[in-house]
């Protein structure tokens, strides 16, 4: 329990502390230290959960599924903080952000991490909703941090679309609570507790649960970035500060998908003996596949580098959603692994993109040229990152996509075809844009910048290791999460 409190409430304390702190220099370091503390707590928590099973109490509950995302969240939070400290100072020196803006940034960075960790560790579905809405509120002012008309427009769109979406999720939660009241003995005390509901899930009224699930999927799906509610995502990613894009892509989308998966577990158990037992799975497959294909096509001919990679995030989230929809141990394991490797790779890519835009002073793809000549580390980082995200062996994304394809081949052979086509199309779109950025001739007057590539190297190395040989501990860990979701072990 102590580990849990340390993990979740360090960022909350950090939010208040950094909000009061005036010195920008100290704030960057403090942000880093707080993230490190939270990660230490997360690792401690993971050791607890691995040793004794789920940690529960006081409407918190951490099991194999959530703890793996907790560690991932804290880790990406830390590596992005390493990148953000010098980057935000540079942005500040460029006079694009005021001192107050910088203070807001650091405070809300911690606030965002707090809402993410709270969403992952709470057992109460109402708190889960409050936390995910809180994540929107924490990040919305960061998207408009640069105060350009485009940034304000992006933030407004993000706010309105996510607000509308998440309202649907609250309606779904209310409907769920309604179903719970007829199944639980004491609904007022634990009517929204996920574990209590899961225990009595077969008694939940199936028709009410299907209505609830549709609303929850639409609501949380908006934050996952599922088509057709995805249009906030490229705007928010491209206009906000780059560290924000890294954590949005690496963390927020995952946590929203985590909420969807929790709801699917409840719905599946409730609908098991009804006329449509696989309703939730089929909906996820449909939304996932459409998002994947639409994003793969949208990757073509992008002009803005951050928009390019945000469409790639939609593509991968679609793939994961599809994987969870297919269900079964293999597909679920693949989707969980994909969540992990995508978050690591994508945040590494955004960090590299931050350096690349710093070097060439633009986000326009046709003006970013010759990165490898100007600063080999950044050029290679981008190239390797893109190779990883496009699913080249031996990187981890290849492994998870391969597993997902085999699972699809077994369950829905015909759907492998659109998946393969989508992967090829996405690959073409990415490489057509990235190849000239990395190899083209550097324009005159382009100089290297001070870049700390350590987080990128670390994360890409991890993705490589995960692709070559999945460590036994991690495989066991993911297997436990798979068992939790599908009821069966893969390994």
């Amino acid at each position, binding site marked *: 329990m102590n580990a849990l409190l340390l993990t979740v409430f360090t960022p909350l304390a950090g939010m208040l502390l950094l909000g009061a702190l005036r010195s920008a220099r100290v704030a960057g370091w403090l942000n880093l230290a707080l993230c490190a503390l939270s990660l230490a707590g997360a690792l401690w928590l993971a050791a607890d959960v691995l040793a004794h099973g789920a940690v529960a109490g006081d*409407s918190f509950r951490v099991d194999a599924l959530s703890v793996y995302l907790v560690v991932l969240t804290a880790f990406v939070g830390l590596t992005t903080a390493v990148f953000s400290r010098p980057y935000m100072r540079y942005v500040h020196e460029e006079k694009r952000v005021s001192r107050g803006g910088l203070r807001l940034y650091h405070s809300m960075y911690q606030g965002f991490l707090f809402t993410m960790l709270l969403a992952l560790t709470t057992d*109460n579905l*109402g*708190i889960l*909703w*409050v936390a995910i*809405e*809180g994540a929107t*509120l924490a990040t*919305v*002012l960061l998207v*408009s941090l*640069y*105060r*350009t*008309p*485009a940034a*304000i*427009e*992006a*933030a*407004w*769109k993000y*706010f*309105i679309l996510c*607000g*509308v979406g998440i*309202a*649907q999720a*609250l*309606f779904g*939660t*209310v*409907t769920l*609570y*309604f179903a719970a*009241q*007829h199944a639980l003995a004491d*609904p*007022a005390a634990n*009517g*929204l507790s996920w574990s209590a509901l899961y225990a009595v899930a077969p008694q939940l*009224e199936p*028709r*009410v649960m*299907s*209505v609830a699930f549709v609303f929850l999927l639409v609501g949380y799906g908006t934050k996952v970035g599922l088509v057709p509610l995805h249009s906030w995502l490229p*705007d928010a990613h491209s*206009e906000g500060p780059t560290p924000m894009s890294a954590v949005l892509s690496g963390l927020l989308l995952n946590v929203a998908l985590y909420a969807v998966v929790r709801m699917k577990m409840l719905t599946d158990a409730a609908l098991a003996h009804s006329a449509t037992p696989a309703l939730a799975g089929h909906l996820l497959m449909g939304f996932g596949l459409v998002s994947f294909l639409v994003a793969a096509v949208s990757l073509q001919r992008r*002009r803005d580098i951050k*928009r390019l990679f945000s469409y790639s995030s939609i593509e991968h989230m679609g793939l994961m959603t599809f994987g969870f929809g297919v269900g079964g141990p293999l597909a679920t394991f693949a989707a969980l692994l994909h969540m992990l490797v995508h978050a690591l790779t994508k945040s590494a890519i955004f960090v590299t993109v*931050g350096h690349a*835009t*710093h070097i*060439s*002073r*633009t*986000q*326009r793809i046709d*003006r970013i040229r010759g990165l490898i000549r100007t600063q080999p580390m950044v050029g290679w980082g981008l190239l390797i990152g893109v190779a990883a995200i496009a699913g080249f062996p031996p990187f981890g994304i290849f492994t998870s996509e391969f597993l997902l394809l085999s699972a699809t081949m077994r369950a829905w052979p015909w759907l492998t075809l659109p998946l393969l086509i989508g992967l090829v199309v996405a690959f073409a779109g990415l490489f057509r844009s990235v190849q000239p950025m990395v190899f083209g001739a550097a324009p005159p007057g382009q100089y290297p910048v001070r870049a700390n590539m350590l987080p990128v190297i670390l994360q890409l190395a991890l993705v490589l290791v995960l692709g070559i040989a999945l460590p036994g501990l991690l495989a066991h860990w993911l297997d436990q999460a798979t068992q939790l979701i599908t009821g069966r072990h893969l390994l």
Partner: protein
Amino acid sequence: MSPAAMPLLDQAVLVLAAMALFTAFALLAQTRLTAAIHTFAWQGALVAAVAALTGRASGDAHLYVSALITLALKVALIPWMLHRLVRRLALERQADPLEHPALTLLAGAGIVVFSDWVAEPVARFDLSATRNVIAISLAIVLLGLLMMVVRRQAVAQVLGFMAMENGLFLAAVASTHGMPLVVELGVAFDVLVAMVLFGVFFLQIKDSIDTLDVDRLSQLAEPVEDDARGDAP
């Protein structure tokens, strides 16, 4: 169950909910901002009254707390903040007529029918007065959504957003006698923070494009993307 056979309190809840639905339509068609804010405040008062009555009927003390929070937030604080913003931005006299009023209202009627259809499985499951209120609250949520789609004025969009929150609160109160208190507090906190952020945004939007007509926020559409912006790392 015929309405006459219901307990008096249930009948009152139904009437109040129906009036809240009516205010949702009024919000949809209201072109003047000040009047729309007043309508929104009335809607909040109706929803708070439903919460208090349900609390009376069921004896749940925490429903009174929820009713008080709603009263403070939706009837007093948020309308007051919006009023202040509208005055500060000199928008009192601005009218924002709908482009196709008849069509919009017809779509609203369609939404009510649709909500009734969606709430049908819930209604079959539970034979009490609440079943109609779930349909009504869903209709209020979706009418708020419609309002955000058809209105171009940022303040009107925010009113639509807040009206959705009213619908959600009504659903929670009517169908389940309110969510657990900690959740309701969390939701109320989120709504409050959202309102403050909306205020910040109005000022930012006004500063950057000198109007609150959000149709002007369309630079991020792809074709203009390359020329309008670009040199921003």
